[in-house]
């Protein structure tokens, strides 16, 4: 039963220097369907949608709307054609109100007091689709899921018939994700088409009608969700079967790796970010820290790694007081730091792989003699780590910036683990990595746990936290809502704590 396609992308090709992001990709979207676009990071999903939204121009291929070919040269064209996009990183003016953000450049608003008229329409639409948000509130005062609603409202008020959502659940708690799915179903009923970019299989199964899978820039297939399963989708997405079971052996933790007692700290803006946080990590244990972004995780990691001052409270690392010590002192006390922004904080992009690998230790023999570096020694050290951690780099003298994300992360782990740390602080260690790099990073963390290191794993990926942790702490508003053994944890319980409810 062929249903006429509402939107067709035909043989879209787009190349960037050194990489073909989309290679003859074809996608058909029908009215009133939620169409999932599934693929790993780097599979070309976002590029394809950026072409549809007019941010990039395709090198070849055509776009048809209701059977007619169209050219979309800019986001403005896309809006005119009824295409709306909710980007992964919201494009909102934080200091302006919801109504001002929606009124920005919106056709049909009056020149004077445009926000007033928009307020009414926001309230109407909010009711119709279950997207309640106060139009007078400034964006910075809203939660991430409310900000997402504003982005959806922005698109709806511009008459979007096709709504593209780029990884919309990556910033949401499980409950918020369920609410979003309800909104999407409502939109479907109203005849909108939704394109849902994701790499999470559960979401595809939960909300999509059909799914198109991309791998390395190419179309694998489009299938109805009712006629597939997670295992088949994984194979399409990764190109092979994935061993989902991690090699995690039961282990009795011994001794204390980290103890945090009543720690208080402020954010960059000077607002309280940590309010009396206390927890411990034992040796041979992974403590997962779950929470919605911006609830104090960053500040917590910075306090523990010597990058932010503690106002009150104590931090003890491997039984030594390390409160407000410098980053170097903390490292030398046996702490490895895998920072959340790996390119900005984890490496010096312009320096070579070898130089980056020796960054923690260049000041000590055998890597230096007095003020001079022993380049031979450094090079030998780098070669050893490159082999051991399987860092794919042409030479040790290649600038670190030219490595892929997964290899940069391997480099960081190699450097941080080379000192045999007793405590590992890992912030979002696999965000943006493909399946095989993720598997390898997980295995390395588990191996360190096996060898008796304590690991604090801060992650927004609840599946990752559930899979790796021995215990799970949930942070909300700078406070620990609760700490539960992973064996007793479930998504719903953790999700509730992520929204500020204590168990």
């Amino acid at each position: 039963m062929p249903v006429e396609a509402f939107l067709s992308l035909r043989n879209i090709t787009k190349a960037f220097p050194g990489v073909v992001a989309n290679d003859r990709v074809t996608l058909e979207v029908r009215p009133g369907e939620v169409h999932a676009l599934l693929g790993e990071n780097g599979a070309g999903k976002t590029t394809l949608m950026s072409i549809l939204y007019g941010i990039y121009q395709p090198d070849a291929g055509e776009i048809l709307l209701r059977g007619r070919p169209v050219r979309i040269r800019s986001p403005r064209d896309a809006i005119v054609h009824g295409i709306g996009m909710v980007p992964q990183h919201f494009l909102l003016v934080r200091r302006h109100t919801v109504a001002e953000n929606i009124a920005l450049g919106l056709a049909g608003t009056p020149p004077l007091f445009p926000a007033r008229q928009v307020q009414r329409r926001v309230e109407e639409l909010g009711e119709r689709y279950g997207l309640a948000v106060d139009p007078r509130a400034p964006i910075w005062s809203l939660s991430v899921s409310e900000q997402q609603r504003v982005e959806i409202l922005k698109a709806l008020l511009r008459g979007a018939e096709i709504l593209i959502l780029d990884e919309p659940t990556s910033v949401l708690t499980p409950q918020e994700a369920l609410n979003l799915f309800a909104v999407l179903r409502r939109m479907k009923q109203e005849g909108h088409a939704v394109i849902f970019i994701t790499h999470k299989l559960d979401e595809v199964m939960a909300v999509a009608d059909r799914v198109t899978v991309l791998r390395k820039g190419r179309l694998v297939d489009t299938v109805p969700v009712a006629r597939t399963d997670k295992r088949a989708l994984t194979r399409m997405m990764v190109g092979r079967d994935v061993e989902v079971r991690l090699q995690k052996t039961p282990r009795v933790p011994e001794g204390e790796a980290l103890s945090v007692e009543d720690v208080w700290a402020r954010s960059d803006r000077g607002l309280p970010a940590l309010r009396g946080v206390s927890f411990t990590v034992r040796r041979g244990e992974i403590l997962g820290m779950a929470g919605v972004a911006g609830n104090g995780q960053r500040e917590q990691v910075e306090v523990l790694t010597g990058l932010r001052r503690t106002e009150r409270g104590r931090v003890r690392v491997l039984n030594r007081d390390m409160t407000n010590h410098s980053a170097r002192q903390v490292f030398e006390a046996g702490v490895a730091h895998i920072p959340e922004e790996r390119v900005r904080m984890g490496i010096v992009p312009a320096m070579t792989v070898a130089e980056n690998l020796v960054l923690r230790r260049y000041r000590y023999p055998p890597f230096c003699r007095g003020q001079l570096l022993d380049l031979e020694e450094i090079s030998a050290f780098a070669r050893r780590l490159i082999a051991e951690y399987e860092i794919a780099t042409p030479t040790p003298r290649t600038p670190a910036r030219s490595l892929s994300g997964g290899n940069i992360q391997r480099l960081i782990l190699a450097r941080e683990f080379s000192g045999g740390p007793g405590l590992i602080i890992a912030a979002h260690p696999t965000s943006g990595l493909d399946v095989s790099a993720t598997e390898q990073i997980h295995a390395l963390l588990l191996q360190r746990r096996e060898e008796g290191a304590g690991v604090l794993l801060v992650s927004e990926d609840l599946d990752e936290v559930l899979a790796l942790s021995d215990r799970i702490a949930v942070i909300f508003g700078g406070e620990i809502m609760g700490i539960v053994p992973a064996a007793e944890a479930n998504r719903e319980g953790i999700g509730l704590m992520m929204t500020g409810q204590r168990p």
Partner: protein
Amino acid sequence: MEEWVVNTFIRGLALGTPLLWAALGEIYAERSGVVNLGVEGMMILGAFSAFALAQTTANPLLGLLIAAGAGAAAALLHAFVTITLRANQYVSGLALTMLGLGLSALLGRRWEGLPLLDTLPEVSAFTYLSLLLAVLLWFVLYHTRWGIVIRSAGEAPAAVDTLGVNVALVRYLAVIFGGALAGVGGGFLSVAYRPSWTEGMTNGLGWIAIAIAIFASWDPLRAVAGAFLFGALFHLSFRLQTWVAPEPLQMMPFAFTIVVLALTARRGGRAQGAPAALGLPYVRGER
């Protein structure tokens, strides 16, 4: 004593007027995301061209009009270099200041010391018009479609772009408008405040206008208070010369500027801070 206070007030208004125009212009440019440190240069070009035309035509209003044009033209240069070519805004602004000072000195040689037959009074309808202008610009910024677009361009240009509004155009217009206001501000100096032409007669007022824009948290209404406060302070530095050596007094407005900037920098709060994208060129697709 009473006369002393009244005098300070009147002179504060007189000097506050050009400061206010220039500061309002800078507020609009910066709200759109472009720092223009060329205010001093745009003011002196305005001052010179206003004087030249007023001297030739004996019409000071015509002088102010050409001053607006001169300021706008200078600002267009800054806009082209920083928005289209994406050069560093601070460097370009400094260059513009030096260009304005040099060019006006060169062209102004034969006008130096000439009298102006028809001048505007120090405090005139224009002074009150400036207050009205400030209110109007405040209203436009906060309660109109244009205002939302201008402020958004300075806060989140990527958001403006993806909604189909031309960021470069918005910034061009705001910078050119700002330049026109700075030019008029300079024109006031040479046809009303001190009706004459001397090389470098803006004397650092452009820098104070920039400080006022910051001091006012980029709010046109607050700029009114800042402009007249600084105007009065400038006048006081002359009055106190009877008792205090002139050099420290001449430093006073500038020292005060530094104090004000230090204080506002510490205040920092979310509602008060600088536009988030201030000083950053916008390129589509860069995150």
